[in-house]
């Protein structure tokens, strides 16, 4: 029994450690005063209202949503097709090819951002929300691939074989068998990909010029120091991530 008490205490401490920063951030976004530090003088929605009224932050929010949803959809499609192709191939080299697509997950966003910037410079292409989206597709495709590849296993291969035996062609196999069977993984990959794009700063910073994403706008805001308004916009970012997570728990895990 003491073993369980010890485990419980350990877990509680761990939760506090992981969640405390976010809790403090959210709590002091309601601070009625100019400084997001104790004592809590009172609760107000003033800072949240200011954030919602700020045209630059709202434009950043829209840009982030568009880039996040669009780039995630593209990354998911590319990753799914590659994962299915490799999972079902009988190539000896499939393991190596798989490692090669998965590898970039551990490559620095900074390096990818710098590399894309150099590539775009070289190609003479200007910076825009499009270039940010391309950057996010580059970082999220390996992630989507890895999640899909983990989900496609012998069960899918067998079901595809059965579908083929019963007369189905490749497109119908993918649409009616493979994709529905791994729907939870597809949802998970899309939502994770979205939250990564939603949160991403350095690539968005390096590859954008006029239309900025929310993290870049927040970074500009931070130059004037920490205040309840930065807390409020941080809470907003958190809220969207939390909603994506909730969608994942409801959509992917329940199935």
């Amino acid at each position: 029994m003491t073993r369980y008490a010890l485990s419980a205490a350990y877990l509680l401490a761990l939760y506090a450690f992981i969640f405390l920063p976010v809790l403090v951030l959210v709590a002091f976004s309601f601070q009625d005063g100019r400084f997001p530090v104790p004592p809590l003088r009172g609760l107000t929605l003033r800072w949240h209202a200011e954030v919602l009224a700020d045209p630059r932050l709202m434009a950043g929010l829209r840009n982030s949503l568009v880039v996040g949803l669009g780039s995630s959809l593209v990354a998911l499609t590319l990753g799914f097709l590659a994962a299915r192709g490799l999972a079902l191939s009988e190539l000896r080299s499939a393991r190596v090819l798989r490692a090669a697509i998965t590898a970039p997950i551990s490559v620095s966003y900074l390096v990818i951002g710098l590399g894309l910037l150099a590539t775009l410079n070289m190609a003479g292409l200007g910076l825009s929300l499009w270039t940010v989206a391309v950057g996010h597709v580059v970082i999220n495709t390996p992630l989507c691939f890895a999640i899909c590849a983990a989900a496609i296993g012998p069960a899918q291969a067998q079901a595809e074989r059965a579908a083929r035996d019963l007369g189905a062609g490749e497109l119908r196999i993918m649409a009616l068998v493979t994709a529905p069977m791994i729907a939870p993984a597809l949802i998970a990959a899309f939502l994770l990909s979205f939250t990564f794009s939603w949160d991403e700063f350095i690539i968005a910073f390096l590859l954008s010029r006029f239309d900025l994403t929310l993290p870049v706008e927040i970074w500009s805001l931070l130059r004037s120091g920490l205040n309840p308004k930065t807390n409020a916009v941080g809470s907003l970012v958190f809220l969207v991530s939390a909603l994506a997570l909730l969608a994942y728990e409801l959509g992917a895990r329940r199935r």
Partner: protein
Amino acid sequence: MTARIEIGGMTKLYGAASALDAVSLTVEAGEYCVLLGPSGCGKTTLLNIIGGFADPDEGSLRIGGRDMVGVPAAKRPTTTVFQDYALFPHMSLLDNVGFGLRMRGVAKSARHARAREMLTLVGLTGADGKRPSELSGGQRQRVALARALAVEPDVLLLDEPLGALDLNLRRAMQEELKGIQRRVGATFVHVTHDQEEAMAIADRIVVMQGGRIEDQGPPERVYREPATRFVASFLGETNFLPARVEAGRLVTPLGDLGSTTAAEGAALTLSVRPEHIGPGAAGDLPGPCAVIETVFQGVHRKVTVRPDRAPDMILRALLPVGQDARPGDRIDLALDPDHLTILPGGDK
């Protein structure tokens, strides 16, 4: 609705090893054919080639008179019941069973009607809306069968269809499979490594080993007069006795086992199943024996004995349960010379 399968000189190599070595086999239309053998004997490779999941390196395959080499699985008059069923977990049973008809462009109402009919055939009336995950192993097996039969294949291929079921369910399902085959009339080719299943269900047993067919025929013929030593031991327990032909008599370490027409001086092996060695008298062959081990099997008691006449030899015999025998006891046994199988070649 049914078709003859003709396989000629079929060879399949995996690297340097041959999974199939010039196999020829004809399965008659409407026959229940069981491919039996240990793992790696080539039986599954043969099934895959018939189904269109593997290409042979050499040889011909005709189903219902049509050449099938190079024809994709989807275009063959065959369907397969896979070992792990391979049901579509995200579809209802109705959609699972109707999948093949959907691929053939059959309208929804017609394919649902047919799917319900097939579910009834396999004893799952009214389970239309369930998902495969709600079913037991045996029920999933039935759905896989219904799904494969729904498109009215000429040939149904079954890859260890009962392998995932427990023993009692397996014995029950094998009777049912046989009944369904009689009703639908299609040619069934069934792969298994379980010799009891093969004997119970097959019209024709094809025993394979090392990519070759060792023996084929009706179960009783193959069990009682196996063509080779391998077949004799794979189809049930047996005793092998070395024998020589001397003056037209079969001479074994146990003594003279009667006259034979085999060539004088030939070294032979005799196969005698344990059920053909039973209680006897001291004058019988093998006669007095020392009991080494006994195993109670319910219907029989299996004894392992060492005969006095050939103390190097170990024999296994089945005794009626009423007759008590314990390790260390001495008993007299008699071998039934009518049930000897004479195999070529001496002791290996």
